[in-house]
């Protein structure tokens, strides 16, 4: 892969790491606060559905994870299994799409 694309992947991973740091912190604090007295699934859904702000927040969370995780796996696959080249990158592109697709499906199910 070209030097430019490799550099772009590095920037993407750094940038999404920053996004994920915020998203994970907000997610954990919110979850801990929200369920401190106990909540049923029905109660959770009644609060989340129709909330555009949270929809956008978790959509961003999913996109960041779908970009960040495959790039990290790319290095891990090279180092641990010596798997490099187009076949690895194609597999990881498919994995990224699956991760993003399944994540967005979950987000839309909870918030829309």
């Amino acid at each position, binding site marked *: 892969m070209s*030097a*430019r694309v*490799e*550099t772009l992947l590095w*920037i993407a991973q750094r940038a999404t790491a920053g996004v994920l740091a915020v998203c994970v912190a907000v997610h954990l604090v919110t979850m801990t606060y929200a369920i401190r007295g106990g909540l049923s699934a029905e109660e959770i859904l009644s609060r989340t559905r129709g909330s555009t702000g949270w929809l956008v927040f978790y959509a961003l969370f999913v996109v960041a994870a779908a970009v960040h995780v495959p790039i990290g796996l790319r290095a891990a696959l090279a180092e641990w299994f010596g798997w490099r080249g187009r076949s690895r990158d194609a597999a990881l592109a498919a994995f990224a799409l699956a991760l993003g697709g399944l994540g967005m499906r979950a987000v839309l199910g909870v918030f829309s």
Partner: protein
Amino acid sequence: MNSLHVSVWRGGAQGAFQAFEVPRRASQTVLDVVSYIQRSLDPTLAYRFACRVGMCGSCAMTVNGTARWTCRTHVDKVAKEDRIEIAPLRNLPVIRDLVTDMREFFDKWARAKGQFRGAATRHDGFARIRPDSTERRRADAGIECIGCAVCYASCEVVQRIPDYLGPAALNRAWTLVNDARDVMRAERLRAVAGDAGCHACHTQMGCTERCPVKLAPTASIAGLKRETARWMMRGER
């Protein structure tokens, strides 16, 4: 006088440790120990050294599991209960005994565009570089590398990805990226970017921890990551 129990690697990649007893002396270095074995106990022992004063970078070996420059490593510092194990450097092919094949290590300096290329001729004046300029200070921080390959032998990424350029070659590239007289900047940044270049570094800092002349290749590699990012964002050719 006390004796030192020394295990020395013999053979090539397939070999075994051989035990020697060496007299313990004051201010004895690991290189002194190896030289004593070669001169007094077994003249067939192969090892490499030249200056004996930490300048040439040729005597690095693995001492009790850690890569070190043996001419400046005192036995007192590394011996455990009067025992020392001496092996060739890791991550390099073993030629024989304590001698490794350094070709790949130095070929990677060339692949990282570690050669200076200027545009000035003998008719041009001297380049005027301010000693306190940012670029000059960055180059200064990495320029004293002695090419001993201790960093390379201590790098876990080199171990995992054999074509990874490694800390020394990338450190060299960083000093040249900061050389205002050099004209190969874009070519060099292209050469060091990627998953066998600076972006493969995990910042584990094994190189920086082990560098005998206290350089910080990790910082140089981080500099290359930043600089390649700027280069890509600006769309430079």
